[in-house]
Structures are given as C-alpha cells and as structure tokens.
C-alpha cells in the first residue's frame, strides 16, 4: 500500500512537470501557430540564473530567476519572433530552431559546455514521512505549485476578458484584430505566460538534477512537444491531460519493466505515443475549428 502511494506521488509529480512544460508550448502554438523550440532555452536560462544567483535567500532567488525567464521570453518575442510575425508556420519553426541553437552556443561561450552544479532546490531535497509513506518534499511542492499554476491559467483563459481575447486570437487571429484585440499585446502576454511556466518548470528541473548545462532544456522540450502533439496541438486541456498521461506511463514502465529493459523505458513510452497517434491522429482533444483554418 505505501509503495503504491509513493508510486502515485511519483507519477503525479512527473506528470505535473510534463504538463507545465507542455502548457508553455501549447499556449504559444494556440495563439500564433508557433512551435517554440527555444522554449528549452528558457528552461536553461532559468537554470543558469539559479547558478548565478546562488547565495541569495532561496525563495527570493527562485522568484528572481522566474522573473528573468519571463523577461527573456518577452525579449524572444520582441527581437526574434515579432519581425517574422506575418510569415508562415515553417519560417516561425526555423526561427525557433535557430534561436535555440544560438542561445545554447551563447551559454557555451559564457559557462562552458560542462554542467554547472547548483545547490538551488537542496532545501527541498529532504523526504518527509506521512503516516508511514515516505515522499520527497520536492515532489509535494512540485505537485502543489504546478497544480495551482495550471488551475490559475485555465481560469484566466476560460473566465477573464484577457482569456477570451486569447482564445479568439487563437481561433482566428485576423478576425480578432478586426474586433479590437491588440495583436502585439496578446502575443506578448502569451510569451510572458509561457516564460512563467518555463521559469517554474526550469526551477524544478534544476532541483531534481542539481546541475545545468547548455543543452539542459533539450530533452524537456522534446517531452513537452510530444505531450502537446498527443494532446491535440493548440488544446490547453489536451496538453495538460497528455502531460499527466506521459508522466503516468513513464513511471508505470519504470516499475513494471524487467530490470534489463528499464534503461529503454523511454523507447517504450514513445511506442505508446506512436500508437496513440496512429489511433487518434488529431490528438486526444482535437482542435476542429483550427484544423479547418489551416
């Protein structure tokens, strides 16, 4: 029983992490058809911010690092994506690849290609014992923070005037402008939210791995990208759902595979992903309205 609960906590925690990552990608895809591969470099920037800020009071350090990532995301929009805003999806994709590569190389120039270790998040490393179930504080904090962030984001998108404008822009950008939606502002808000998600996810990633390298964000963004596709490109609910599903499947394979096969866990996860996409090519929650537009 305790084992089962521990596993469940693991699965929810990994799932929450993936869901955060996937939301950051899905948000921007929804609004501007952009698959932002440089999202991984936002994670990296957050990671190095924690390295540089080492020594600061921990909670403040986390907040400052997240703020830095949000600013980096806004700068990304302003400098790299705004000039190509009217270009087609392929141009945007190539721009995001180029930006990703550029930022990785800047990181190599500044920090070298070897991982930098950091104690950020060590405060969360201890496990706690709740009625015989041992769970890590990091997992619990991650679940609480990710859960709150996801709920807040969903409420903003579903309920507020800003959210209505974002959904309108996501469905039909040109029409949204004709009915008064300020295009630049709404995209900037999308980038800021995406940056917030990356800042938080990046912090938890650092806390888990204890180090940062120039390619720190690459595998995380791959997972996020896969979750976004499986969820149904552009669907926020789909991205969250698929993020959690990926987390659960990953932990399930981790536990159930024979010891010799555990190193190939991710291959099994991706096999499930492929199978899902064969059965549901439009993803778990297809975006019919936008499919018709593209």
């Amino acid at each position, binding site marked *: 029983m305790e084992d089962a609960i521990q596993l469940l906590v693991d699965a929810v925690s990994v799932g929450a992490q993936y869901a955060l990552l996937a939301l950051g990608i899905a948000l921007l895809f929804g609004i501007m058809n952009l698959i932002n591969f440089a999202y991984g470099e936002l994670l990296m920037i957050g990671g190095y911010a924690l390295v540089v800020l080492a020594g600061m009071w921990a909670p403040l350090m986390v907040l400052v690092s997240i703020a830095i990532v949000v600013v980096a995301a806004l700068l990304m929009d302003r400098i790299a994506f705004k000039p190509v805003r009217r270009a087609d999806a392929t141009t945007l994709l190539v721009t995001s690849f180029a930006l990703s590569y550029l930022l990785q190389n800047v990181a190599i120039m500044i920090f070298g290609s070897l991982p930098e270790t950091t104690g950020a998040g060590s405060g969360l490393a201890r496990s706690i014992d709740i009625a015989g179930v041992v769970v890590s504080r990091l997992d619990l904090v991650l679940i609480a923070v990710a859960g709150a962030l996801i709920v807040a984001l969903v409420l903003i998108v579903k309920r507020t005037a800003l959210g209505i404008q974002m959904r*309108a822009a996501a469905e039909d950008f040109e029409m949204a402008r004709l009915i008064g939606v300020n295009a630049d502002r709404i995209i900037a808000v999308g980038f800021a939210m995406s940056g917030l998600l990356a800042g938080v996810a990046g912090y938890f990633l650092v806390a888990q791995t204890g180090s940062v390298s120039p390619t720190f964000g690459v595998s995380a963004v791959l997972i996020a990208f896969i979750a976004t596709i499986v969820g149904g490109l552009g669907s926020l609910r789909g991205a969250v759902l698929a993020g959690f599903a990926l987390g659960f499947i990953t932990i399930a394979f981790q536990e159930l595979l024979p010891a010799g096969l555990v190193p190939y866990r991710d291959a099994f996860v991706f096999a499930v992903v492929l199978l899902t996409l064969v059965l549901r090519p439009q993803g778990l929650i297809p975006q019919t309205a936008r499919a018709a537009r593209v």
Partner: protein
Amino acid sequence: MLEVDGLTVAYGRVEALREATLSVGEGELVAVVGPNGAGKSTLLNTVAGRHRPRAGAVAFDGRDIVGAAPERIVGFGLALVPEGRHIFETLSVAENLRLGRMAGRGRTSAEDVRELVARRFPVLERYADTPAGRLSGGEQQQLAIARAMAAKPRMLMLDEPSLGLAPLMVDAVFELVVQLHAEGTSILLVEQNARRAVSLADRSYVLRSGRIVREGRREELLEDFEQMTSAYMGGG
C-alpha cells in the same frame, strides 16, 4: 464621415482596386455592388486596415486612417463584418458579444448589449452559452453583425452578409440592415445581390475589375437598372 480617395490596392503585381473614390455621409446607407472578383472585399478590407494601399487616402471623421492597425480602426468606431462571417466558433455566443463590447472601449455596457440583442437579434438570446459554431448560417451572420454592433460603431461595413444564406434568412439580414440604418448607423454595404442592395441603399457605386464605373442615387440607378444589368453582372 468616410472619404476614400483614389485608393489603389495590389496583391503582388495584380491591382485589385484602381483609384477608387467614394464617400459615405453621416447616417447614410451606401452600397457597393459588382460581380465576383471586382474588388469589393479588397475595398472594405483595406479601409478596415487589413491591407496597405499602394496609393490613395482614407479618412474617417476627418482622420487619416491609412496604415492604422485593424484593432485601432475598430476602436475609432469603424467596424467591419468580413465576408464569410468569421464568428469565433469555439467561443460561446455571449463571449463573441463580449469581444464586440470590449472593442467599443467603454462605449457600451453589458446592459446595452443585452438590450441590443433583445431588440434586434432576438434569435440569439436563448443561445448565450452555446458555442457559436453550433448556430445555423443565418444565426451566425446575425451574431457577426451583433458582435460588431456591440461595440456601438459609428459606421458599419458589411461584406456580402447575404452570401450562402437561405432565402428567408437573406430577407431577415436585409431587414436588419434597414433597421440599423433607420436607427442612425452609417452603413457601407457590399453585395453581389445588386438589385436588392441598390433598392435598399440611399446611394450606390458599381465596381468592375477594380474600378468604380457608376455612381448614383437609388432612383437613378433603379430607373436604368435593366440597361445596367450587364454592368452589374459583368456580362455573366
């Protein structure tokens, strides 16, 4: 109220609109008719800020609006209901209307919009929480117009509002245009349905191959309508 002077618009090397000059006065209902491909949508879209003209001037209330972003132009009180309606299908009817109200920048309250819908768009009342994509074509067209009117624009531009609707719905939409006009909204109406549009409008322009080839008041145009058929229809 709206003054378009020598407007030329090109897509690449193709000139879709050539030195078009027209005006719409305060409270006037003006129609632009012409065959498919004449440049009617190009005209409205350019005025609304979606295309940058190659030459010419557009003034709304005396203000030069060439080059202004679409979201600013609707803020000035000049709203476009584009061809094909373009309601937000995944948003509810109420959310579509709320977007319109936001575009009005405080000109209308939620109560004003409720009143407007009850008075002019009663079919929409029971659909408030329905995704707009579920409405019929005619209802969607009414929603598209209601959304624009929720901003309380000083002038409304309608691009082929009758396109693709069942005959009864076509009647309803034209009736709506007449009512909005009677309430004082200035309207620029673009239609392929020439006879119908010309008979509603105070004045009309005939557009062919990007050029305005005729202009006149309702009586003048209706009088020689039969002879003009080939001009309206482009011979086909």
